[in-house]
């Protein structure tokens, strides 16, 4: 309404101003034109009076100017420039210029003067006419225009007001309704409010669009709330607290989950960056400040672990992550992130570290013990073995059958013990006496193994086949031990006579996978793990001789090389032992 009225007023004012300006600029010209036209008439009518020296006639011609109130005075001069007749006749002659000036028009104060020639026939100059007019006509006209403009303005404003009042219902009401709705929403945050639709015109469409937008906002608002609640639940459950650091104003704001991480009540935290730093452990405080401020300055991701000291003296470990939020003006002014308590995890880690150290230490002791024990056990055992063998050789004819049988048991026991000790020594030497890893041809190793096992293979009628074997970086002696143990087992645990053993190698991206397949007695799935544990035997030594160390030794060797060993098997159908050796360059690193 106000806009409508203002618009019409401004338009009218501008129009009037333009009109006035035009009038003012053209008035003088028009006035001169009017004067000139009038002068022409008077001059034409005066020719005879001048030609025939008839003053009274000239005076009478001039007196016709009475009809023109703007003409103040007029005068006729004869061809010699002498005043001939004047108007008004009552004016004294000396109030007129004594002689006429040059022809032309000029403005003098509030008067306009015009000197015009009086000519008869072909340029036959008879005299000069002077007309003097005041500008009151202009002022009269301007006054009239002003009055008219004021009237037009008034009428226009009234019409504009009436129109605006009439149109308000059509235009303003729907808009006001929408404005009311928007106000209600912004004040109460209730997005379910809708603007009333009035009419089916463009404003109706606008209202529909507005309501549709409200619907979308409501939906988004609901989604945000849900998401917020889910986030809150997650934060609550995880014990993660969020923070926002306003770098520009040095403020630190926390959510409800952050306060417990620092052991403070929400009211007890001042909310400043410094009060946050004050809660950091004094040994870590400098580092916390440096790390955060560097991240704030470089907008790199922030990640840190530091200790906080609760007001009650408790020391806790916190992990922190954050990132800089880009400011609207391109300035990096805010950083947001999360804190969470890692005290328990850290303690567990430390405990575990202690345990690992302890374990390694005891493992080493055990190895040393095993080595020392088996080494030192050999000497007395050799004594027992050699003297019982001596006894058997020298005195067998002097002993009865029972004594010979007993001595035979003693010799057998001593030799089994010898094997056991040798195996134990091998086992303990895997890590202590291993040779450096070097480029090794597995095919060559297999050849050696085939030769070592030649007698056993012949006895069993075994067939050993192998695929293409690669060169690998490994301890050749130990890989040979693994192969010999696995192939030996395959022959030992045969299913009847003529076992068939096949060795293969498959290359993968990072390692070689070797497999030793047999058609032997197979293993129950439940024992797949157990067979690799030292001294674990599935069979009595009566059925299959052995020390129970072989597969444990294989596992140890493969693990020393960084690989894995496992078995796939079905009872009575056969077993396949797999082991991997990671690829290395020649210097031995993976």
């Amino acid at each position: 309404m106000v806009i409508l009225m203002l618009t019409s007023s401004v338009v009218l004012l501008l129009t009037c101003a333009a009109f006035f300006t035009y009038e003012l600029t053209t008035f003088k010209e028009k006035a001169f034109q009017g004067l000139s036209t009038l002068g022409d008439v008077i001059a034409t009518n005066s020719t005879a009076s001048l030609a025939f020296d008839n003053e009274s006639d000239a005076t009478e011609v001039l007196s016709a100017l009475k009809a023109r109130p703007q003409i103040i005075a007029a005068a006729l001069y004869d061809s010699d420039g002498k005043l001939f007749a004047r108007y008004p006749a009552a004016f004294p002659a000396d109030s007129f210029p004594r002689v006429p000036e040059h022809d032309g028009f000029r403005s003098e104060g509030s008067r306009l003067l015009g000197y015009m020639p009086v000519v008869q026939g072909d340029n036959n100059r008879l005299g000069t006419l002077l007309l003097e007019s005041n500008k009151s006509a202009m002022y009269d006209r301007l006054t009239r225009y002003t009055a008219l403009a004021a009237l037009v303005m008034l009428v226009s404003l009234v019409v504009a007001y009436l129109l605006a009042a009439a149109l308000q219902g059509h235009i303003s009401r729907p808009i006001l309704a929408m404005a009311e709705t928007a106000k209600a929403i912004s004040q109460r945050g209730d997005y379910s409010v809708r603007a009333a639709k009035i009419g089916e015109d463009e404003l109706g469409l606008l209202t529909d669009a507005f309501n549709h937008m409200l619907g979308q906002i409501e939906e988004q608002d609901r989604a945000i709330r849900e998401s917020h609640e889910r986030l809150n639940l997650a934060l609550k459950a995880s014990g993660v607290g969020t923070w926002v650091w306003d770098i520009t104003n040095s403020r630190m704001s926390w959510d409800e989950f952050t306060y417990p991480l620092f052991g403070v009540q929400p009211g007890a935290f001042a909310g400043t960056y410094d009060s946050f730093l004050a809660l950091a452990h004094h040994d870590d405080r400098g580092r916390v400040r440096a790390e955060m401020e560097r991240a704030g300055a470089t907008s790199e991701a922030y990640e840190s672990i530091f200790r906080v000291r609760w007001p009650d003296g408790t020391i806790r470990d916190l992990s922190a992550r954050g990132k800089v939020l880009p400011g609207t003006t391109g300035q990096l002014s805010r950083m947001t992130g999360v804190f969470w308590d890692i005290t328990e995890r850290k303690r567990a880690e430390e405990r575990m570290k202690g345990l690992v150290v302890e374990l390694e230490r005891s493992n080493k002791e055990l190895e040393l013990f095993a080595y020392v024990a088996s080494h030192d056990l050999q000497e007395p055992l050799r004594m027992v073995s050699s003297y019982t063998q001596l006894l058997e050789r020298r005195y067998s004819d002097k002993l009865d059958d029972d004594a010979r049988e007993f001595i035979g048991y003693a010799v057998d026991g001593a030799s089994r013990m010898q094997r056991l000790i040798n195996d134990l020594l091998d086992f303990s030497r895997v890590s202590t006496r291993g040779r450096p890893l070097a480029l090794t041809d597995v095919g060559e190793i297999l050849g050696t193994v085939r030769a070592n096992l030649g007698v056993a293979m012949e006895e069993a009628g075994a067939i050993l086949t192998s695929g293409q074997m690669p060169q690998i970086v490994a301890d050749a002696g130990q890989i040979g031990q693994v192969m010999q143990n696995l192939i030996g087992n395959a022959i030992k645990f045969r299913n009847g006579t003529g076992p068939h053993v096949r060795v293969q190698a498959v290359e993968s991206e990072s390692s070689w996978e070797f497999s030793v397949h047999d058609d032997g007695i197979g293993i129950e799935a439940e024992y797949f793990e157990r067979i690799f544990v030292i001294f674990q035997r599935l069979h009595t030594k009566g059925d299959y001789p052995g020390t129970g160390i072989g597969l444990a030794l294989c596992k140890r060797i493969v693990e020393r090389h960084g690989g894995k060993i496992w078995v796939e098997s079905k009872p009575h159908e056969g077993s396949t032992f797999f082991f991997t050796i990671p690829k290395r360059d020649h210097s031995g690193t993976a």
Partner: protein
Amino acid sequence: MAFLGRRSRAPRIARAVRTLFCVAFGLLLTDSPNAYGQSAPSREYQVKAAFLFNFTQFVDWPPAAFPEDTASLVIGVLGDDPFGPYLDDIVRGELVNSRRLTVRRFRRPEDIAACQVLFISRSQDKNLQKVLSQVKGNDVLTVSDADAFAARGGMIQLATENGKIRLKINVDAARASSLTISSKLLRSAEIVASRDD
């Protein structure tokens, strides 16, 4: 001061007038042309000479009034010439409707030849009727300063009243010919009718 044609001529006329003022102011209103002779016309006759010229500006002649298209407009002076060379000076070089102006003088009515304006001197007062009837129908503008000239059938009478020269025009006489007298000229003149005699 009178209205003596173009400004370009004014200095010469003004000089003459000034001389006349000095010499003959006292004789201005005397009636006798003989008093100052032919070579020095009175101011009165200077004015009258100018009037004669001015009449050519306010009167239209039909083409038939001239013997040929390029013929001059002739101002004839019948009888004693009161203007002397003054009238010749005034009309010299002037053009009226592209016609040059010439002055011719006729001693007696029998001498009158083709002319468009005929000034009848007082000396011919007694022959007036004869002259008027002689030029009637020839589209001649008859002018005279003889008493009651207009009333006696002349067209324009130059009458002197209170020291000023006034025009008296017999419109009927003018209308009888094919001349057209400008309404402006009529307005500054007194209209008189023919006296029945």
